[in-house]
């Protein structure tokens, strides 16, 4: 092999750097984020486990059904009908975006662009303050 | 083979650094645009495409123009083009790369660009444009690289490239035809709504592409030992001259149809581009492109005249000058007037003029520099291989 002297140390440095995050956090206790659940509502439109794992898929399905297929019929949860809508459906119960959506999203380092357009409850006020 | 691009004299490295500097400026400008939105450009509700899309349109032509260098050699076994076919293919690679960058720069949501593939829409001309452009890039990379690499190894290129070379010839026509179809299939944009748009695009492409190549070849003749040869040069003059004449013939046809029929919609944009368009409500005259368009006509005709004179006089300086004249003339015609003019007046017959912003010009310069960077590296490799082979032969 040519340049053995530089390639092997280089490779080692690269691997160490790449694994740094694992070494650094190994053994530390990291607490799962606590989301604030809506008060006064017992049931969601889907089981909790499904919502935890796949709410984004459901939102995408709703989006296409409502906009593209015109299927705007409401969905039922615990005997109550809700709109198939993020800001008029989900946020009807989950009124606090910061303590419900953001807590988890920030923890998982995902930044969905929903809120670039959709308006969270009270967010119009928050926006006003920010300006 | 790539290592050839890492060996060069001071001039080569100075040029590369210069290009990288401009690319850097382009990147900074793009970050500004990305953070602010396309409002950082001079485009508006009425003129929705600006200098990006017009550069894209022109550069598709430059890419298609490579055909004029490939076709005689591979289809007619015109041996004197043996040294320039590879240059034609590499120029096409750079031009298509620039086209794609200009499209990306023009998107309001560049992160969603792949939606064109995720949601394929065969009724949209942009869908086909994506296919033909990426196909053309692929064909030229494969053909150019394989042929040159075989030459580098001192063997004849493998047989399997032949079909790709033959496909690339009609493919070159398709890229500019589809690009013309982007415009000429839109109802209500009278200036673009003309069946002659694709032929006009091709004529200007077959002149502008070889013009650029000729200028680069003449520069290389001075700075390196690489000479494409007098015979190839003279043949190129014929190709450029006739293609450029055809372009003006087509333009003349457009002008006749508009001004003989005197249909207002057909005259409006031509008025705006060549004479100035008056807004009847306010009496104001809009003519910000008139000096450019008139210069385009003058430079185009001067270039055509001079290019034949240069051949008679065997003058490389005059040849370079006439090629630059024709190239700039067609750049104005297609890279400014065609796209910008189509938006004046708008669908409600209101007039809005467009002026690019500095950010926009910075990005445009950056993309052009990227193209020249690609050309520089590829040509450096190509001529190194060619010169080395000739030394050993």
């Amino acid at each position, binding site marked *: 092999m040519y340049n053995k002297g530089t390639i092997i140390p280089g490779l080692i440095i690269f691997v160490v750097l790449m694994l740094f995050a694992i070494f650094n956090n190994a053994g530390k206790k990291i607490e799962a984020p606590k989301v604030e659940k809506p008060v006064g509502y017992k049931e969601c439109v889907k089981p909790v486990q499904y919502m935890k794992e796949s709410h984004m898929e459901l939102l995408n399905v709703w*989006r296409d059904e409502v*906009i*593209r297929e*015109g299927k*705007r019929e409401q969905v039922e949860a615990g005997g109550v009908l809700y709109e198939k809508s993020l*800001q008029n459906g989900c946020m009807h119960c989950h009124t606090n975006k910061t303590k419900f959506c953001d807590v988890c999203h920030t923890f998982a380092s995902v930044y969905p*662009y929903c809120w*670039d*357009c*959709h*308006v969270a*409850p009270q*967010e*119009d006020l928050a*926006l006003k303050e920010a*300006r | 083979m790539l290592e050839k691009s890492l060996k060069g004299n001071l001039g080569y490295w100075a040029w590369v650094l210069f290009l990288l500097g401009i690319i850097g400026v382009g990147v900074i400008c793009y970050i500004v645009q990305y953070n*602010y*939105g*396309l*409002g950082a450009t001079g*485009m*508006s*509700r*009425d003129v*929705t*495409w600006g200098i990006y899309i017009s550069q894209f349109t022109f550069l598709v032509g430059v890419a298609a123009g490579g055909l004029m260098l490939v076709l005689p050699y591979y289809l007619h076994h015109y041996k004197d083009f043996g040294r320039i076919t590879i240059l034609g293919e590499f120029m096409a690679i750079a031009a298509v790369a620039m086209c794609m960058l200009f*499209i990306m720069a*023009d*998107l*309001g*949501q*560049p992160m*969603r660009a792949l*939606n*064109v593939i*995720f*949601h394929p*829409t065969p*009724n*949209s*001309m*942009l*869908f086909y444009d*994506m296919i033909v452009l990426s196909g053309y890039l692929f064909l030229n990379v494969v053909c150019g690289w394989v042929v040159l690499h075989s030459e580098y190894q001192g063997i004849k290129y493998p047989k399997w490239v032949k079909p790709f070379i033959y496909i690339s010839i009609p493919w070159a026509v398709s890229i500019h035809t589809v690009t013309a179809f*982007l*415009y000429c*299939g*839109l*109802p*209500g*944009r009278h200036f673009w709504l003309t069946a002659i748009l694709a032929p006009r695009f091709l004529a200007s492409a077959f002149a502008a592409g070889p013009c650029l190549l000729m200028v680069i070849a003449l520069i290389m003749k001075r700075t390196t030992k690489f000479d494409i040869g007098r015979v190839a040069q003279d043949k190129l003059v014929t190709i450029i001259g006739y293609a450029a004449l055809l372009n003006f013939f087509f333009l003349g046809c457009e002008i006749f149809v508009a001004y003989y029929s005197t249909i207002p*919609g057909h005259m409006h944009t031509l008025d705006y581009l060549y004479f100035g368009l008056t807004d009847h*409500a306010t009496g104001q005259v809009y003519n910000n492109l008139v000096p450019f368009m008139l210069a385009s006509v003058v430079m185009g005709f001067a270039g055509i005249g001079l290019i034949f004179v240069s051949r008679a006089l065997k003058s490389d300086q005059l040849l370079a000058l006439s090629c630059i004249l024709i190239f700039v003339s067609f750049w104005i015609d297609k890279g400014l007037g065609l796209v910008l003019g189509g*938006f004046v007046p*708008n*669908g*409600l*017959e*209101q007039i*809005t003029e467009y002026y690019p912003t500095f950010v926009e010009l910075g990005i445009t310069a950056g993309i052009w520099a990227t193209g020249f960077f690609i050309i520089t590296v590829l040509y450096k490799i190509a001529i190194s291989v060619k010169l080395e082979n000739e030394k050993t032969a």
Partner: protein
Amino acid sequence: MDSSRRKFLKIAGISAVAGIGAPSALNMLMKKEVQASSDGGGHGAQPDAHGAPAGHGAAPTGKRYGMVIDAVKFHDNPGLAEKCIEACHTYFNVPDFGNKKDEIKWLWQVPFTNAFPTDESHYKKDDRTHGMQFLVTCNHCDNPPCVRACPTKATFKNADGIIMMDFHRCIGCRFCMAACPYGSRSFNWRDPRGSKDGVPFIKKINPEFPTRMRGVVEKCSFCDLRVKKGLQPLCVEATGDTKAMVFGDLNDPNSEISQVLKARFTIQRKPSLGTMPSVFYII
């Protein structure tokens, strides 16, 4: 195996593949064709079809929403058009940037010359028509050039003939804006949620409807979300009892709009382009 047999097998194989594939491909094409013609005739239909009682094209199926704008009534009711625009723009969070370059509008007013540029006669310049303003918006064409141009189906025609925008999918190429002959589309050149000198571009955000983000195209949606619930579009609602705007199903011969179109002479914007607009004007 000798070469002629090999050749035969090759050809047989290819034709078998083609034989299996071709009918389904043909089928797909035919289906599309059928759909296109029931959509209102596609390219083949005559643009003058609006005179027919059914509204548009041949063999209409399903709903086809349209609108009649009575420019005379708007002329006689000063301030009414502004009320319609206000109703639309406030509900849909349409920003006001205060300059022409960034402008976004779904519904606005222009003089006759601009609304109907090809219909202008050199000598017939009666004061009334030329003093009037005309509300213009998306025409929700039966044969929409914008839908044809869009490379991602971000703009599309829904089952009710409404031309929709899917803001989630739009890549901001603005091909639709070049394709629209009516200048009905606007682009978010910058963030509509921003502000200038402390004044927000959207004065009061309506929490019922999303805003847009920069880099997408937007336009009038015929209030599809309201229409689906059996309500009238906001602009029509804003005209109250004046009947300055009539909205309804063009395919239903008994609908109010069909009755109006039967009884009154109406014009469309640029009918010669074959786009078959669904917005009609009484002048």
